[in-house]
């Protein structure tokens, strides 16, 4: 168990191997990955310090907060707004179930925002407590690497502190990126979108990734007019094509105006709002324009050049399978490495790092069958391979099972929105290679399916599981007839 040896004020206490370092581990960035690595390392007996920028909902070079993106500017506030927005549709659905609800509903954005901020403050406090309970020394300020074993922390008042550490972990995450078009400063990113003073009346969202569709769903659900612009034919590049089409249809069904294969070229400030100009020559006026066009790793101000930590062309820290950089004493986890940018993955990387470095057990994060969710309304959730990936990767035939159905709730509410589920199976081994679902509760449903996939469950094992009736999820264990079989011969093989 943990040798919890670090006590405040004893920073100069020697560690086991002599007095060379202030810390066994110094972590830069107290987000999901950093906090996890710090806590677990401390639990293994390491003396750990961690630094983080001062707290504020909107991040910048000098603003952050313990908890990181997930807690302050990502998963948590986003999910809160999704909950809030989902009620919009729910209340509509209630009518056919006999509920008499006012035609015009009153929604108070400021109240929701205030409650969201309260919750984030609460979580920020919890994270700080987690660190102090694990005896991790938390320092407020901006961390820079000044040597392979040396970190400098610039405190908010400008004073600089310098610490030596046997290991340094970079866990500084990432930030939203804005495309360089004229008037880009008029647009906001997801940081600001989570903290707007007023609910947009007419929002333009630029981007086709999960952040874009989530915000489009949030604002639409709360009653705004929303136009969504993206470069590809369908949103959510990288996901299963059939699912992408369903998401697009559902967004449209919920009243979002889609503009596929359309780029924004210019934003102009006018008296009525922001004029948005597209590469198709279209124009419209919006009061909010959101850029959800990707995120970039936060590596610029870390002074990595000084010690020679390699980064790739997107600015991500290059690491090996153990999250080790090219400098033996420096490691990196989470979004700053741009592997798979999800909180639970950062947690896994942080856990593996602590095990490897302080737990005496070399441990690689396993990136196979990692489930994830898009909290659009309704949500999408997947685990394993998409149909396209399976066809690409499997040598033999691929069996695709799909089910598209009207969820029971809609039979009375009258909502025209189908739920779709899909299993992709290796015909030869019967292994389920991928599962996906778009419909209410998809992320909750997918978690258990993910356990089954992670352990190589076969379609026969799915079939032998009895359904829970009536649920949507039971469809995953009752897909009896194959929708299509993609034969090895029929596949367009890419050269390998």
């Amino acid at each position, binding site marked *: 168990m943990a040798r919890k040896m670090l006590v405040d004020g004893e920073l100069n206490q020697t560690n086991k191997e002599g007095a060379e370092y202030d810390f066994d581990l110094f972590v830069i960035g107290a987000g999901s990955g950093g906090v996890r690595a710090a806590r677990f390392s401390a639990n293994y007996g390491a003396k750990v310090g961690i630094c983080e920028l001062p707290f504020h909902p909107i991040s910048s070079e000098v603003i952050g907060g313990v908890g990181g993106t*997930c807690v302050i500017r990502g*998963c948590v506030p986003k*999910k*809160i707004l999704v909950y*809030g927005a989902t*009620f919009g549709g*729910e*209340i509509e659905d*209630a009518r*056919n*179930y*006999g*509920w*008499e*609800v*006012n035609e015009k*509903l009153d*929604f*108070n954005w400021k109240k*929701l925002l205030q*409650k969201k901020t309260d*919750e984030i403050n609460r979580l920020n406090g919890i994270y700080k407590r987690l660190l102090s309970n694990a005896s991790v020394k938390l320092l407020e300020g901006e961390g820079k690497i000044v040597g392979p074993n040396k970190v400098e922390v610039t405190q908010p008042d400008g004073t600089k502190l310098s610490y030596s550490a046997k290991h340094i972990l970079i866990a500084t995450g990432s930030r939203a990126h804005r495309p360089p078009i004229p008037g880009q400063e008029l647009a906001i990113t997801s940081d600001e979108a989570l903290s707007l003073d007023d609910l947009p009346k007419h929002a333009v969202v630029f981007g086709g990734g999960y952040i874009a569709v989530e915000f489009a769903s949030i604002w639409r659900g709360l009653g705004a007019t929303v136009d969504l612009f993206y470069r590809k034919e369908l949103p959510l590049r990288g996901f299963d094509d059939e699912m992408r089409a369903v998401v697009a249809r559902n967004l449209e069904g919920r009243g979002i105006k889609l503009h596929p294969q359309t780029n924004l070229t210019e934003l102009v400030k006018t008296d009525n709002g922001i004029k948005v100009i597209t590469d198709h020559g279209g124009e419209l006026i919006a009061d909010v324009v959101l850029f959800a066009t990707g995120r970039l790793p936060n590596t610029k101000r870390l002074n990595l050049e000084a010690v020679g930590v390699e980064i790739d062309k997107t600015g991500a820290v290059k690491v090996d399978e153990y999250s080790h950089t090219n400098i033996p004493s420096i490691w990196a986890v989470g979004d700053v490495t741009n592997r798979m940018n999800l909180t*639970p993955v950062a947690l*896994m990387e942080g856990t593996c790092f602590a095990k490897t470095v302080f737990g005496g057990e070399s441990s690689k994060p*396993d990136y196979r*069958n990692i*489930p*994830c969710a898009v909290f659009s309304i309704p949500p999408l959730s997947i685990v394993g391979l998409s149909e396209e990936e399976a066809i690409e990767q499997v040598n033999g035939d691929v069996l695709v099972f799909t089910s598209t159905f009207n969820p*029971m709730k809609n*039979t*009375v*509410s009258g909502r025209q929105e189908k739920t779709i589920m899909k299993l992709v199976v290796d015909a030869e081994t019967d292994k389920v290679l991928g599962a996906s679902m778009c419909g209410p509760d998809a*992320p*909750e*449903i*997918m*978690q*258990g399916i*993910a*356990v*089954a996939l*992670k*352990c190589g*469950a076969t379609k026969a094992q799915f*079939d032998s*599981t*009895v*359904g*829970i*009736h*009536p*649920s949507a*999820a*039971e469809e*995953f*264990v009752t897909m*009896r*007839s*194959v929708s299509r*079989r993609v034969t090895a011969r029929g596949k367009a093989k890419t050269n390998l």
Partner: protein
Amino acid sequence: MATTSFTAPKLSSPTFQTLCRNFPLSLPIPKTLSSFSFHLSPFLSRFHLHHHHYHPPRFHPRRLFAVRAESENGAEPIRHYDFDLFTIGAGSGGVRASRFAANFGASVAVCELPFSTISSETTGGVGGTCVLRGCVPKKLMVYASKYSHEFDESNGFGWKYDTEPKHDWSTLMANKNAELQRLTGIYKNILNKAGVTLIEGRGKIVDPHTVDVDGKLYTARNILISVGGRPFIPDIPGREYAIDSDAALDLPSKPEKVAIVGGGYIALEFAGIFNGLTSEVHVFIRQKKVLRGFDEEIRDFVGEQMALRGIQFHTEESPQAIVKSADGSLSLKTNKGTIEGFSHIMFATGRRPNTKNLGLESVGVKINKNGAIEVDEYSRTTVPSIWAVGDVTDRINLTPVALMEGAALAKTLFQNEPTKPDYRAVPSAVFSQPPIGQVGLTEEQAIKEYGDIDVYTANFRPLKATLSGLPDRVFMKLIVCAKTNKVIGLHMCGEDSAEIAQGFAVAVKAGLTKADFDATVGIHPTSAEEFVTMRSPTRKIRQSSESQGNMGHEAETAAGV
């Protein structure tokens, strides 16, 4: 048709197929083949053509198998029957068995009583309990009633209602009944498309191969009884004033103040429904806790959560009589006193198999003391040509189990593949508010069966509740066999439990270990991710070596991280 994809007909001898195509059905064929239908052989060959590639690459000898109808009775002369299978009762199990049997090439008829929302000796309806008087209407009512909680939640998320939303009972009933009509139509269609003959009327068994439907006789090689169960109300004075779940799903107006007698899942589901639709709800249970047979911690948790939503529980209180007052209201007299002023008193005190007036005694089909038909592992009764599936056999009374039994029977009879339903790790849900989802063993069962177990629990306030300010919580529990590390039980009470449990049921059924759960990455932020992030056991239960039997176990609290 669907099943054929994985379980295509195994009758693959080429000579036999030739026979099928070329000869009429009355051909005297050796006994070993005679339980297959020949006049539908084009189906067989069609499936062969289309689904041949899904055959597991194994050889299936055309062996005679012991449970085959008439196999013990080899001396019986070849007979012609009207049908290969005659099914009495077109509910979940009956429809499934009939369809699949027809898809495997059998000639099938099914009889069912005329449709009504309330079941009786003379009314039923295609679709059965699940579709007409159970799962489906119940779930629709749950959806309807959940909104009042959602309105409360939405207040915490900034939504405001100028006037409190009011519920109009008749709109709900009309829309619910329209949906039931649609579904019963769909079920008829499904039977029709599968080539099953649907006969409306009351079926009664005359002899081992003959069914009487309202005076008309039909012969069949095999008879399937799938007549389900019906609510049971104990014989107390005033029971004529009580309603059962059939009536409760189709009340003409909202009950203002309702007493629900019973602590099982039906009682809890209706308590939630009426509470959500703004009735005053009192639940009377004989025991100290609700849901006997469920995990003890779940029993405590769901009771607390329901009470927090305004349901009044009267524990260890048994009804003795119902009295109707002059003003029309009802009083419930119990062992503890009398409570007055109920508009409705509902009994959810169990269900009994519908085995009366089926002619069972006369043909020698044995029933047990509850009235359930006794069957073997292949759903065969004591009469070799008569089979039974679903609630009428009182095994596990769930729709998906009846489906499994029906599918297994069709395989056994018409696909030359004796198949036993597998009752291990059958998941189930209670659509109480909050709902429960579970699979595998309870902690109590696990201790009994395995002795040494590790129990992981989580009891938390979900993200939604921190915003809504409501006292909703979620409880989750994993039970792990200490010796094998296998997850042998999983329980949850809280929003989305039913949906969440399904995927985990695949994992539990597949025999996965706690390490497998731990190796799975979470989906963030969800409630379900908690099941894959439970790192330290809440308690480890070990049989103390010196104690005898199962009584001496000790709980040790594990050190938290």
